[in-house]
């Protein structure tokens, strides 16, 4: 984590014209001429109209199926504008949303899982956003799925870490620490876009503001490696970490993700490596920096791969260079693999750290041009 940063969300909302204010569900039945009737069943999701004026939109949902369902409104790139869970068979619900002009999808999810049955709808009005390249919408949706998967996979690993802490099992907790962070490190720009979660789970001691309580991974890292003692307070910290990570997992779907945001997020991940990992500051007690390092690079590479169909068309030379430099960094990292992780970073000499730093610079510099390659025609 970085001590101070402009959140990705702030940066992105300035660029996007698809910002919509999430609505909230109401209990009234919402029958009225202006409401969009959504009839959900186990195999269908019918909407009474596919076009409506931008602004306040009311969805009157009726579940005629046998399974409990959910209704979502998605903006392009599968960003959740609003959602309503737990709509039981035979029940009705009203979902409200504020939407700007543009394209959306309404999804019903019988059984409350999966991609859902989707209907394309349009909010009409002034200031309609220019249609985005559908390949980029696909990239954003795929990246969101990746970010969600990382959060989903992190929870059991973090739970194993928390359990070990709560059993006062120092060795097991140390072993579970770095793997519990990988999913987070891979998708950190998304996590950081929810300004309140990062300071709770990934803050370092020097990043604390006055009066801020130190919680999260690095506080526990200090107990495990520095004081080498697990206290009762650490048990509570472990519980708190899980609670905060669950909050993260739940919110990934609502994150503002744009193609340029993905590209700049990839660059930010390399910034993290350059300022925090190469220096050994991030994991100053556990020295597991190389695990985070790899996570950051993997996350950046995923963004790049998803954007590559567009970027390689707009700037083939850049794509070639990025392929080469991603491979070069991963090859350097391979030198330090040990077991299913990496050697302790305090065993990596200054000379070798400089080699890593040079490789990161060699990748990050062209990566900073990816956003332009995504937007340019």
């Amino acid at each position: 984590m970085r001590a101070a940063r402009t959140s990705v969300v702030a940066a992105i909302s300035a660029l996007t014209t698809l910002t919509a204010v999430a609505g909230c569900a109401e209990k009234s039945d919402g029958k009225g001429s202006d409401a969009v009737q959504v009839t959900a069943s186990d195999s269908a999701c019918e909407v009474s109209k596919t076009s409506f004026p931008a602004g306040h939109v009311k969805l009157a949902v009726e579940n005629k199926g046998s399974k409990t369902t959910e209704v979502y409104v998605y903006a392009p790139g599968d960003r959740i504008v609003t959602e309503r869970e737990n709509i039981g068979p035979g029940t009705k619900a009203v979902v409200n949303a504020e939407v700007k002009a543009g394209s959306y999808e309404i999804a019903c999810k019988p059984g409350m899982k999966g991609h859902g049955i989707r209907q394309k709808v349009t909010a009409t009005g002034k200031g309609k956003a220019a249609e985005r390249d559908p390949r980029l919408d696909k990239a954003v949706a795929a990246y969101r799925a990746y970010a969600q998967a990382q959060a989903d996979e992190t929870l059991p690993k973090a739970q194993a870490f928390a359990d070990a802490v709560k059993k006062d099992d120092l060795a097991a907790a140390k072993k579970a620490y770095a793997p519990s962070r990988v999913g987070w490190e891979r998708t950190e720009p998304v996590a950081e876009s929810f300004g309140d979660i990062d300071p709770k789970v990934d803050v370092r001691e020097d990043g604390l503001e006055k009066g801020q309580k130190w919680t999260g991974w690095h506080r526990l890292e200090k107990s495990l490696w520095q004081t080498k003692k697990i206290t009762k307070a650490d048990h509570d910290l472990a519980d708190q970490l899980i609670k905060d990570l669950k909050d993260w997992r739940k919110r990934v779907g609502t994150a503002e993700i744009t193609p340029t945001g993905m590209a700049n997020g990839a660059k930010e991940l390399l910034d993290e490596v350059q300022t925090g990992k190469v220096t050994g500051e991030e994991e100053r007690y556990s020295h597991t920096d190389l695990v985070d390092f790899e996570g950051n690079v993997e996350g950046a590479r995923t963004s790049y791969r998803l954007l590559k169909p567009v970027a390689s068309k707009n700037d083939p030379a850049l794509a070639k260079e990025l392929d080469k430099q991603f491979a070069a960094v991963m090859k350097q990292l391979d030198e330090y693999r040990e077991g299913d992780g990496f050697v302790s970073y305090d065993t990596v000499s200054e000379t070798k750290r400089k080699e890593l730093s040079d490789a990161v610079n060699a990748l990050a510099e062209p990566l900073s041009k990816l956003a332009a390659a995504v937007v340019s025609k």
Partner: protein
Amino acid sequence: MTDVSPSRRALIGWGGAGLALGAAAAGGTAAALSGDDSTGPVDDGGGAVPFHGAHQAGIATAVQDRLHFAAFDVTTDDRAELIGLLKEWTEAAARMTRGQAVGDGAVGDLVEAPPDDTGEALGLKPSRLTLTFGVGPTLFRDKKGKDRFGLAGRRPEALADLPAFPGDDLDAARSDGDLCVQACADDPQVAVHAIRNLARIGMGKVAVRWSQLGFGKTSSTTPDAQTPRNMMGFKDGTRNIPGTDAAALTKHVWVSEKAGPAWLAGGSYLVARRIRMHIETWDRTSLKEQEDVFGRDKGEGAPYGKQHERDTPNLKAMLPDAHVRLAHPDSNGGIRVLRRGYSFTDGTDGLGRLDAGLFFLAYQHDVREGFVPLQRRLARSDALNEYIQHVGSALFAIPPGVRDADDWWGRALFT
């Protein structure tokens, strides 16, 4: 690519016509003085020093006030990629010495992308920026003995590792390098901007190995000007080779066609040494001993027994181990090098001592008939050795000048 970036001089023009005229006049003077030879001394008016010429600028050029020197490791093994970089560097260097931003400028039109130029020199004068490029022994064969670029056969004999001198305490992290760029300018920000942008352009092909800032010139290639003082408070290098003395330059500085190799004719050799001064102990030394060590008086800079700085020294009036006596051409069979060093202060070390000294830069036609015999003598006997230590060292061959817009740094070496 259209040339949309406003030159620094043009920016000044927007601010005030008088200033713009002054800068233009200075540039004109520079061009007039140097003619076809870009390395001639220039007027000190913030103007531009011509980039193209028979010799690289930044050697015989009147010494600017500030330095940023960088040594690079080449990280790619791909010869074509290295050549591509040298072309890109040359283009950027030519632009920057004219006071222009690199690439599409510092405020490009794509807000999603970082600008090509880093921007800190916007609005500054060209400040007589010179960028001087060199190649080190490891470019021809690296430390493991590998000939990465098919250049091993082209390495001049004189470009061998410098011998170890008594008293050296060289830090590998501040020594050597496959390539170097010396940026000199009258404005420190202009010099730093140049190295920063070249390093950025080079990422993925080269990496900065070490770099050194110099804040004050310690030598002058203009005999009419005051000889600057070093960090010890003394004028040193009074008998430097003037940038206007074509005969001395030909004899002592430029590699002749006869000496070869052909790719280096019109070029030179550069020795860079980071010389740390033990400032605190020097400051506690009596004035008498300080003057004995140098062989000059501290106030005027006159040689022992003489009135004025430029009086012909009587070497025998000095102690046998006095610095001036040992370094003087008359004590060394007429050997002369062109000195272009800078004082540095990199803050303080962990013990509260000033990390300061002289970043020694000397150009010569052959190190074996220049720095090496000189330093052998000094390292053995110089009274100054009690107060200094050489902590970094590098040797580079400096190719001849970039002739025109189609030429590039190192072309003759690679083709």
